[in-house]
């Protein structure tokens, strides 16, 4: 392979990307060397098994991915603002909408939420870490390398360009030769391993490591949403694993699953993809529901209305999520009977979702609302999400879907649910738990500025798209006709508003780091659940003494009784897992194997896989059982943290 085939050439924008990658990496390397921080980076972060640090790394990566996906979005909006724009050519446009979708769902939404789960769930249930801290680190690195592998495609080898759904036969070897589509397959496969492992890990953590006395129906609602989400992950992700593997075998080893030759069946890909893909959208929305429930209960200063109904509606949504996948391809021609069945099951999902909306409204009803930034996100979520949900029911009607399908109406619908649901929740959750993570709040003034810019920008961007969609504008076109221009210009303006909102949000992180008042207690918002019972910053073992829980809203009950998580008489040595470099090394080797497979260098890929197996053998013989934190050490840390 020649060098100019290996690197992507001929695109000024991509050259600019290459230059900025080189500049940023050299700057990072320079800073780390100059301040002699390599050892610190390795010891404190790269080898960590602490769920809080892993969570922070997840969120930082997700923010970087949000930036990348956002840049893709802005470039698309610029191209679509006017007819006959020459900002991007057709090929480049195809690559960008493909990476935008994939990055936002797989490498932004999920890791952001998994990051929040990482930090908060053990704290909410009174656990000291995950059930399997080693596996947790492994999961993070598999996601991280998967994301890197996918992102490197735009400078090396070329980006995938068959859409984030990668429908065959377009995505097959015959019509998309070259490494681009392989990046999609291997990047998702690699990060999928981590997602499945996290799902199992969190399930066991929640089932087996709750504080003594805490029953399932006394768990905080975010923990419940995590448990239900993990259940979906465990049952949905293997489907993606298989689908990706089958396409990989098709492309690299010449099998005939989704091909047009050898009696292959390209539509089977759509079937498998959406059998995972529909549960996937609930994987990213249920934790969002959990976050909003926590935020609304905290700032309405009321117990969440209808806790049991909330839990059961989530379980019902999880069950139904496996029964509706065909609504993503009603127009494929499966026939009236098949479409009718899935049309009905789709509309059924609106019922439990409606239950949740009414419960949030009932929680707010007659309460004294505190308008903090996280609460504003939650309040903006309810009406925006309802718009997205109602248009979703419209799309769910199979006959009508023949009109809406593949138009901007659909684009507007899923951005209304994914942004107003998931992205708002990410911002709300990050701002809500920020003091627990970093020891200071985010500035409220900048927070509200970024909120208004983002929310107004969001509606300005996507509301017109419903109408331009009804006017007949199809998705995935790189140029528009003059009739669609006015609404598209509005959309583009709104998109820059959202971009500005995100910029202000990032500036706010820096500003608050410099200027915000440091937290003195662990209880920043007068919270109700156990995560606020720990001091801030949270000691690495989380709880010096684990409280006995016998009620929902456990911390509220503790505050009434005057209990804390530090009872000097009950202190015992705490068992903690040791940090280890094995997860990052193992996943780096696997990433190397995946990279080799992308370019179909089979020998190198086999060497990488053997290396991974050797790492697994080394791990199998590893009997490191961690260490104990002595009572005196705990006393010292707690006294300092609690200013006793």
């Amino acid at each position, binding site marked *: 392979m020649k060098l100019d085939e290996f690197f992507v050439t001929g695109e000024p924008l991509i050259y600019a990307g290459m230059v900025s990658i080189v500049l940023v990496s050299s700057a990072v390397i320079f800073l780390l060397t100059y301040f002699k921080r390599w050892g610190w980076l390795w010891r404190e972060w790269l080898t960590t098994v602490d769920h809080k640090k892993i969570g922070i790394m997840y969120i930082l990566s997700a923010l970087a991915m949000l930036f990348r996906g956002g840049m893709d979005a802005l470039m698309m909006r610029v191209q679509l603002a006017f007819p006959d724009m020459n900002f991007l050519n057709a090929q480049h446009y195809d690559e960008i909408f493909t990476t935008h979708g994939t990055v936002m769902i797989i490498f932004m939404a999920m890791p952001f939420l998994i990051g929040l789960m990482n930090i908060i769930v053990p704290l909410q249930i009174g656990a000291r870490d995950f059930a399997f801290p080693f596996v947790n680190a492994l999961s993070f690195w598999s996601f991280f390398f998967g994301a890197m592998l996918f992102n490197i495609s735009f400078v090396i080898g070329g980006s995938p360009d068959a859409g984030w759904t990668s429908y065959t036969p377009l995505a097959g070897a015959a019509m998309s030769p070259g490494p681009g589509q392989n990046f999609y397959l291997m990047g998702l496969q690699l990060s999928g391993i981590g997602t499945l492992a996290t799902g199992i890990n969190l399930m066991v953590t929640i*089932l087996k490591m709750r504080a003594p006395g805490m029953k399932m129906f006394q768990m905080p609602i975010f923990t419940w949403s995590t448990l239900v989400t993990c*259940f979906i992950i*465990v*049952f949905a992700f293997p*489907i993606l694993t298989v689908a990706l593997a089958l396409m990989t075998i098709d492309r690299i080893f010449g099998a005939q699953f989704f091909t047009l030759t050898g*009696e292959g*069946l390209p*539509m*089977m890909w759509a*079937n*498998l993809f959406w*059998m995972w893909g529909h549960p996937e959208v609930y994987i990213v929305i249920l934790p969002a529901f959990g976050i909003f429930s926590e935020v609304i209960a905290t700032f309405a200063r009321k117990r969440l209305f209808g806790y049991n109904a909330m839990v059961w509606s989530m379980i019902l949504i999880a069950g139904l999520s*496996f*029964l509706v*996948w*065909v609504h993503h391809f009603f127009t494929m*021609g*499966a*026939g009236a009977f*098949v479409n009718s*069945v899935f049309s009905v099951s789709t509309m059924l999902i609106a019922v439990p979702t409606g239950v949740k909306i009414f419960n949030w409204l009932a929680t707010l009803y007659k309460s004294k609302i505190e308008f903090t930034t996280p609460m504003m996100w939650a309040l903006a979520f309810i009406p925006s999400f309802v718009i997205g949900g109602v248009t979703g029911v419209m799309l769910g009607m199979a006959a009508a879907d023949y009109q809406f399908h593949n138009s901007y109406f659909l684009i507007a619908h899923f951005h209304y649910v994914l942004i107003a649901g998931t992205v708002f929740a990410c911002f709300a959750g990050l701002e809500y738990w920020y003091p627990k993570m970093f020891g200071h709040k985010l500035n409220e003034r900048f927070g509200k500025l970024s909120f208004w810019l983002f929310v107004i920008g969001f509606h300005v961007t996507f509301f017109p798209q419903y109408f331009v969609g009804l006017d007949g504008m199809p998705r995935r076109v790189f140029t528009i006709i003059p009739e669609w221009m006015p609404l598209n210009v509005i959309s583009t303006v709104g998109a820059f508003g959202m971009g500005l909102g995100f910029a202000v949000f990032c500036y706010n992180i820096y500003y608050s780091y410099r200027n915000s008042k440091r937290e003195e207690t662990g209880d920043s918002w007068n919270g109700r659940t156990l995560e606020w019972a720990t001091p801030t910053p949270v000691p690495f073992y989380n709880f010096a003494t684990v409280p006995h829980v016998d009620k929902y809203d456990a911390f509220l009950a503790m505050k009434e009784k005057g209990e804390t998580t530090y009872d000097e008489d009950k202190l015992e040595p705490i068992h903690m897992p040791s940090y280890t470099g094995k997860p990052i090394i193992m996943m780096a080797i696997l990433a190397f194997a995946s990279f080799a497979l992308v370019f179909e260098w089979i020998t190198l890929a086999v060497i990488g896989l053997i290396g991974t197996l050797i790492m697994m053998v080394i791990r199998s013989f590893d009997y490191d059982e961690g260490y104990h934190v002595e009572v005196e050490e705990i006393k010292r840390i707690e006294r300092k943290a609690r200013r006793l």
Partner: protein
Amino acid sequence: MAEHSKRFPVQHIIGFVLSIVLTLLAAWAALGSDLPVKWIITGIMTLAVIQAGIQLFMFMHMTERESGGGHVPWNMMFHGFVLAAIIVAGSLFTMSFGFTHDHEDGGNHQQEEKHEEQSGH
């Protein structure tokens, strides 16, 4: 359930004999009997499910006391099999339009066969 204290693994031997018998029964039903194809498929799939149950309950200690009465394992296995049914039956249902395809021996014949295959799952 105090099976591990027993000297002789009775349960394992019963399970083993049963699985051998069921396998032979399935092979005979498929190849030696004159039953209609639809009945054969239904029958041998039922036998397979029974055999899976033997492995889970008699060999894998799914419901032993120490695993919390097997509450979670049972739950996971149950939902796993429900999902398996949804995935296999749902795929066949959704993709059923694809069953008529060009073949030398004509489409009609093929379609009939596939119908039986579908009801087997």
